[in-house]
């Protein structure tokens, strides 16, 4: 169901968004549906590289049936406002894996919002998000995991790390757990940091100019996000886009 009223910042999931940019494209299209049938394995990816000044909202409504698996890779780097949301419902023994990176500069507002529901027992989910933010950019991850009463032996994690290149950049990380079952493993970690000054001096002392050193450290920071993209062409495209964005930032 699509609501035609523009959201406000009072709504938690829009709290950090650029609502002016959103207004220009409102109402946004209906969510893209992905339904993974029982026992199937599926892979999807999204490169959000909208043009400068544009607003882009991508909503995914996903169901993963019993014993099925979905791997999703997302790179969120484009536009003035770039928002990617995932609403996921997991069947019995299903698995959802999200690997994402947000790289932003200028006045960009980039966000990844997830709502993962473990509706049945034995399902697992993993979310790994790495953000690099420079200048006045804002990068947000809002992730909620909901474990239903009968969803015993759920195993879920969220790993969120952000790197700020300038004091004026902002990172928001908000993992949220709502658990109604009693035999559950849920882990979440969130860190916000800066480039390691000792490492930068060590690299400079070996002759690396500052831009090369920073790029190398940032590549290392996001390395791994796209490691397990099965399609080599897709992997190359995501990695090249991430690197080009990084090089433009440092």
């Amino acid at each position, binding site marked *: 169901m699509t609501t035609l009223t523009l959201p406000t910042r009072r709504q938690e999931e829009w709290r950090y968004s650029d609502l002016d940019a959103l207004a220009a494209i409102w109402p946004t299209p209906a969510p893209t549906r992905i339904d993974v049938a029982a026992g199937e394995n599926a892979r999807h990816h999204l490169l959000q590289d909208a043009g400068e000044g544009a607003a882009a909202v991508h909503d995914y409504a996903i169901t993963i049936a019993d014993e099925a698996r979905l791997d999703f890779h997302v790179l969120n780097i484009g536009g003035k406002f770039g928002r990617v949301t995932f609403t996921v419902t997991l069947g019995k023994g299903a698995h959802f894996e999200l690997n994402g990176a947000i790289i932003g500069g200028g006045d960009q507002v980039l966000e990844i919002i997830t709502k993962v529901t473990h509706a049945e027992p034995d399902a697992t989910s993993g979310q790994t998000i790495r953000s690099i933010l420079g200048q006045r950019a804002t990068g947000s991850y809002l992730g909620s995991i909901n474990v239903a009463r009968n969803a015993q032996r759920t195993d879920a994690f969220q790993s969120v790390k952000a790197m700020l290149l300038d004091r004026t950049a902002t990172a928001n990380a908000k993992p949220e757990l709502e658990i109604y079952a009693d035999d559950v493993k849920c882990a979440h970690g969130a860190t916000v940091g800066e480039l390691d000054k000792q490492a930068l*001096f060590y690299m*400079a*002392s070996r*002759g690396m*100019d500052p831009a090369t050193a920073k790029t190398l450290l940032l*590549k290392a920071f996001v*390395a791994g996000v796209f490691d397990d993209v099965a399609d080599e062409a897709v992997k190359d495209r995501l990695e090249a886009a991430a690197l080009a964005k990084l090089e433009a930032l440092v």
Partner: protein
Amino acid sequence: MLTIENLTNEIDGKAILKGLSLSIKAGEIHAIMGPNGAGKSTLAYTLGGRPGYQVTGGRASFDGVNLFDLEPHERAAAGLFLGFQYPVEIPGVSNLQFLRESLNSQRKARGEEPLSGGEFIKLAKEKAGLLGLDMEMLKRPVNVGFSGGEKKRAEMVQMGILDPKLAILDETDSGLDIDALKIVGSGINAIMRKPDKAVLLITHYQRLLDYVKPDYVHVLAAGRIVKSGGPELALELEREGYAEVVAA
């Protein structure tokens, strides 16, 4: 090659070096010894250009260039190598990637062509062999999970690959057992004991100097060189202690 005149500096407003002078010519190996807190590591970091190490007076001329006019990476490209007492760990960046980027950055700054992947690997193999370091170690992230001795050997492999004119080695002997000390000592000799190169060894102990024989030994205390001499000064220090020699 390096002439330091009346160097003073401070860290967070606290004066550490208080008028240090030292001159090193090509072909020479100098050792600086001294008690804890004398300013030995500060001297190394100041020459390397570590942020926060504020030069407040004096000069350092490296091959006729004012060292303090250069950024840290430019000092490296000019031929300065700083061996760290505590080499820094860099997760996610392999030693090979780190060294190739470093070497090619230096070559670019000097207007030379970058080394190809094949040429670089050949060079890395040769220098790793010199220090008895397995090439597999160089595929691992920089210093991550390395023992104290492995870190120091990796530093010397870096020095071999970057091939500096002047190496300032800050307590390269700390954390080494006798066997590793021998390997590191002979590595320093093989790489740096040449007529067109020079070394400044910073150390607490005489034992490294058994393997890397210095031409000159200096005692640094309270931010100044208080005594200079030949290799026999190191033996005297070992025998009588800093307090005795500094007071004399």
